[in-house]
């Protein structure tokens, strides 16, 4: 919390909002410049709203219990004109002006030469993330976004099918992703950490499970990570991962998913080149574990009802085990040192 609460109402309100859980997805716990501006504006509005409420309560109390002189003043036409029309018109205009001025930078892409550009495409029901690697070569990823701390990041937002909305409350405002258009968003994280985002426009079936995590990391770490992320997938060495890879290809996974460095080049579903380095399976639906990955492959319609991946129950348990072992081994991007 950035400011001391200005009154009992704010205290009660923030206690209620505090129920939303960890600070990874809260407008009131900003982790970036833009989010801080929004939080400032929010607190200003809350404070001002409290002031107005106090004035109204006072006016009512005075109108009932005040001395006859005060009641006469309140009953004058002038009082209505000043407090009822002039006061809101002036204050709301000032607030609007302040808000527009404060947010002016949000929708422009940063002009900074060091700015990082990331493209995010909303798809039913996942996020296609494309980083720009060395010399601008695109690096395909999905469902997790890594950004450097302290560096402006320009997001180019698009939609593949229906309208989605990109919102990371702790980092900034909400911007719609509209089919056929590219919208932009400018975020700068101020402290490292994991921030949660959510599709904020109903986009059908499993919309509620279309969440993601933004990982803000120190700029040097980010650069090193990006370099690793550009590499092709790990070549399987153990017997089980080799079997997993040939099962991955024989089962037809590669018709929808790409694993760079193999013949799997599908573009319909999330890129799996470094899936083993991700934190979740099914787009933030479940933490990435062996059991959850297996469940998503064979029972995905229960895990995330309506998602577009068919359930692959054709695989027998030993085959599934090899396949999942292979997928979990795809984590070049996670290698440290």
């Amino acid at each position, binding site marked *: 919390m950035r400011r001391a609460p200005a009154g009992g109402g704010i205290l009660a309100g923030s206690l209620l909002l505090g129920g939303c859980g960890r600070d990874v997805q809260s407008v009131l716990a900003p982790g970036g410049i833009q989010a801080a501006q929004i939080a400032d504006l929010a607190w200003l509005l809350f404070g001002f709203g409290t002031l107005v409420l106090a004035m109204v309560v006072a006016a009512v109390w005075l109108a009932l219990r005040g001395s006859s002189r005060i009641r006469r003043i309140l009953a004058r036409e002038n009082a209505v004109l000043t407090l009822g029309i002039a006061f809101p018109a002036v204050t709301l205009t000032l607030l609007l002006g302040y808000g527009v001025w404060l947010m002016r930078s949000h929708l422009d892409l940063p002009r900074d030469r060091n700015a990082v550009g990331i493209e995010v495409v909303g798809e039913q029901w996942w996020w296609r993330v494309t980083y720009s690697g060395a010399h601008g070569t695109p690096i395909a990823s999905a469902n997790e976004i890594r950004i450097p701390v302290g560096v402006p990041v320009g997001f180019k937002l698009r939609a593949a099918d229906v309208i989605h909305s990109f919102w990371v409350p702790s980092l900034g405002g909400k911007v719609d992703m509209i089919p056929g258009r590219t919208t932009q968003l400018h975020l700068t994280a101020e402290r490292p950490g994991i921030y949660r985002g959510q599709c904020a426009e109903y986009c059908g079936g499993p919309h509620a499970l279309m969440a993601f995590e933004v990982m803000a990391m120190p700029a040097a770490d980010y650069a090193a990570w990006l370099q690793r992320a550009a590499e092709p997938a790990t070549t399987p060495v153990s017997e089980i991962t080799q079997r997993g890879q040939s*099962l991955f*290809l*024989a*089962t*037809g*996974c*590669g*018709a*929808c998913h790409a694993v760079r460095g193999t013949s799997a080049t*599908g*573009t*319909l579903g999330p890129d799996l080149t470094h899936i083993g380095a991700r934190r979740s399976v099914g787009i933030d639906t479940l933490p990435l574990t062996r059991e959850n990955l297996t469940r998503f492959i064979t029972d995905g319609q229960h895990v995330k009802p309506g998602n*577009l991946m*068919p*359930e*692959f*129950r*054709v695989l027998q348990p030993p085959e599934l085990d090899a396949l999942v072992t292979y997928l979990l081994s795809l984590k070049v991007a996670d290698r440290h040192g």
Partner: protein
Amino acid sequence: MRIETRRRWTAIIRFILFGLAAIALGGFLLAWSGLYNVAASRGHLAVTNAMLTFGMRSSVRTHALGITAPPLDSQDLSTLGAAHFHSGCAFCHGAPGVPISPIAESMLPSPPNLSTSMREWRDRELFWIVKNGLKYTGMPAWAAQQRDDEVWALVAFLRRLPALDAAAYRELALGGLSVPAQSGDEIATTEGTSGAVSACARCHGENRRGPNSRLVPVLHGQPREFLMAALEDYAHGRRASGIMQPLASDLSPEDRERVARYYAGLTPPAAPDLPPLNPESVERGRKLATSGDPAARIPGCMGCHNASSLEAYPRLAGQHAVYMVNRLRLWKGGLASRSRTDAIMAPIAKALNEQQIDDVSAYFSSLNAAGKLNR
């Protein structure tokens, strides 16, 4: 005056209620006493028979009103229908050269002999009867209610039936299968029957001979695991087919395994006389099969249907276009299936448009089973 009217109405209502109760009680007592004779050997009174027949014909006519018959003159349809008629219908209805079983003949009503006489039903009425069956007659409904396409195949055959003699029927229904005469010993001591009812080859062909209807898939050289899963799915009702479900459930698991091995080991037959394929359609099909249609969320077919794919998946090279179009349309039309592979294929087939179905079927039918172009 008003009170009097009311009394009269009360009396009438009471009379009706008591009357209904008396009828219900009388009916119950009749059933309870067992005086009514349910014996099939007794037959119906002539008047009952006339009334039941009249009601049945009217019911069929009315219920079939909304059905539109597709063109039924295709050889593929009537050949498939003939093969099923032989195993599913001839026992009760007879066929040219096949007498009605005396057991079936003793049913009430006794089934009409379709080889000698068939009422003048409309196509849509025949379809309705074959699909739904007839209450109180022993005529069963089609085992797979979702498979209208199969019912139409049978109707197409029924249209040809009156013109067939015994030899022509045998050729059509047995698919040119030669059934060796059995010795007295074999007839007396083995289970095999000369009717060849369960022979897969009647439809699917055998060594060096492909299916005799292009609506029937080529099984030659398909992976054993896939064939086995298909038979298991039919036998347990996970895959819908009024033709295959009864045949597959008749086979023991060991038989299924053996027959799956047999077809898996066959070399695919030479392509039959194909109508010339449209090269543009084949080329569009090739593109779709190799790289899919990402905009429509369709993955390339070759991802799962290539020579090194899972053994649980079928190989499509050399499959008849007519069969593939029919199968893809069934999925597109919402065929519900509980087979493991259908769960993967059905949503993809639903995403295909009509032209893509034609193109991709043309492409695979243009390949021989080694995956090379046929022409």
